[in-house]
């Protein structure tokens, strides 16, 4: 789709509601790494009173507070643009509250079951215990061919994965989906969800590259100078292994 005209359409969904935890860094990282590969990036920041364009290549959604999460889910369901984009083959990468919205259902700020977009086969509830807060270390699904996952989690959700999706990663340290089975995040086809902040693509630039490869339908990308990313990864992976 995009390789022919050398452009990449990057959509940052609902910054007015779902951009509270620095997750717009994910958009900055994808944009930068695409530009380093010579792509022209057209970035669309779509507010929740605007229609979600259906012709984007990569859609990013971040975390947010409980009420904005409900509002975002209502507005995305009503708009329908994101679902149509996925039907067109678009890539979606979502974090925390955004991850829950992509699932079948989550618990909203009123304590009620709120329908999601059904783009991931997951159902989220709210945990009773302490909030999961801290550095996470995990192993990404080997089918995706990516190195260790490092991130920062800050949530109270519990997300159960149904047969239509696979766990994105297994945590070695941290809570992840909070189900006690070590799973973290979920994905199917071109739709991804994770609880990881950090932002997660700044901590794991090769996930950003995976999204680019899927969007461009290529198996490899020209290399980039990743020494600062590597230094940060090394430090955070070591820090996660330190006793608190």
């Amino acid at each position: 789709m995009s390789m022919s005209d050398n452009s990449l359409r990057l959509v940052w969904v609902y910054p007015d509601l779902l951009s509270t935890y620095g997750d717009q860094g994910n958009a900055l990282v994808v944009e930068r790494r695409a530009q380093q590969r010579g792509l022209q990036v057209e970035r669309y920041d779509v507010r929740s009173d605007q229609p979600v364009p259906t012709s984007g290549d990569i859609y990013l959604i971040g975390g947010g507070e409980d009420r904005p999460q409900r509002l975002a889910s209502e507005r995305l369901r009503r708009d329908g643009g994101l679902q149509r984009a996925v039907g067109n083959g678009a890539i979606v990468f979502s974090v925390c509250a955004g991850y829950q919205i992509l699932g079948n259902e989550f618990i909203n700020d009123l304590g009620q079951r709120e329908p999601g977009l059904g783009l991931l086969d997951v159902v989220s509830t709210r945990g009773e215990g302490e909030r999961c807060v801290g550095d996470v270390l995990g192993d990404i699904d080997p089918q995706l061919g990516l190195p260790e996952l490092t991130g920062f989690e800050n949530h109270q959700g519990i997300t159960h994965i149904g047969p239509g999706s696979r766990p994105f990663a297994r945590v070695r340290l941290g809570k992840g989906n909070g189900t006690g089975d070590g799973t973290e995040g979920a994905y199917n086809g071109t739709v991804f969800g994770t609880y990881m902040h950090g932002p997660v693509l700044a901590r794991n630039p090769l996930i950003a590259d995976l999204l680019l490869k899927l969007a461009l339908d290529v198996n490899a990308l020209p290399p980039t100078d990743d020494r600062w990313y590597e230094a940060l990864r090394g430090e955070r992976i070591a820090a996660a292994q330190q006793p608190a």
Partner: protein
Amino acid sequence: MAGHPGSADPLSPRAKLAVTAGKAAAAVSRAAGRGSGSVIGGKVALRLDPELLGRLATHLDVVLVSATNGKTTTTRLIAEALGAAGPVVSNALGANMPAGITSALAGGSEARFGVIEVDEKYLAGVARDVDPKAIALLNLSRDQLDRAGETRMLAEKWREGLAGSKAVVIANADDPLVVWAASSSPNVVWVAAGQEWKDDAWSCPACGGVMQRPGDDWFCGECGFRRPAPSWALSGDYVLDPHGSAWPIHLQLPGRANKANAASSAAVAAVFGVPPQVALERMYQVQAVAGRYDVVQFQGRDLRLLLAKNPAGWLETFSLIDPAPAPVVLSVNARGADGTDTSWLWDVDYTRLAGRPIFVLGDRKLDLAVRLEVAGLDFRVCETLDEAVQIAPPGRIETIANYTAFQDLRRRVGN
């Protein structure tokens, strides 16, 4: 909980004992080299007499100051202004939770005014305990999300806590979250103090509608919640009072945000009969506040020390630093007092530093390095402040750090 009517001496024997025990604990803490002792002293005193804070405040006209940013500086400005009308006791060092506040008040038995900075999370409780005459609310934005919880929830707690308050609330009309929090109160003085950071108020705090923000105005298109008409305003280098008179602001403190703090402080002073001209003249006395904005000499160079703890604070700081090519040192930690999540770095627009030589340090210098790399900026990662200062090109060095990183820098330069 406010006071004991009929008692000439507001401090009962138990309260006096608590104050004495607290002072003893503070002295021990100081002697042991563990800081000023104000927090430990207050903790001991509060444990002996949980209602002590309220009783210490009964003989004072109390002003509470809360915000995400600027509360320590504004507390100093108000204390300076009210000094025109009588002696002031204040938690000037920024110990802003109940223990630190108790300790500060225990040291001011002769004062008429208590000017008290309060941590955002404790405002409602402290406002209940001390029966304040005035409450200044400056701004609310994202800060320490790993432990402080959600910004709108804080506004909600303020709103609930202020609903029954008899205090005059002096509130920033340009911050929708502050307006929503303050508008539960029957007696509000609105100050158009400005707010550069807007990204925590795109969603209407009342109904969730999308906020419209043409120019300096704002309103919710769905429920009609809108910017109230201010009676005070910051206008460039002037404070406009409710009569329409413009009073010049002369501060040693730099930046737009401090002019806004001065405007709010003048409105607070007026509640106690101090005219804006007198209040603003007195504010000139305020130089550095707990090291913030101090210019220090270090290794033969001038360094200006600037504290910025969250995206809104960094944004205001970028607008006051010397223009390029002034060198900039950035230092970020993520210890308990800073919040342990560094994701907020990505909400700061570092491209504003383009053209300046940038030196990066602190516990989380690698997070900053990736942030700056993605912003396409040139930077150098340094192990120490000494190293950064040695290689920085000529010119005054603007040193911007978050909370514990700032304390580290002050210690290193002997401030």
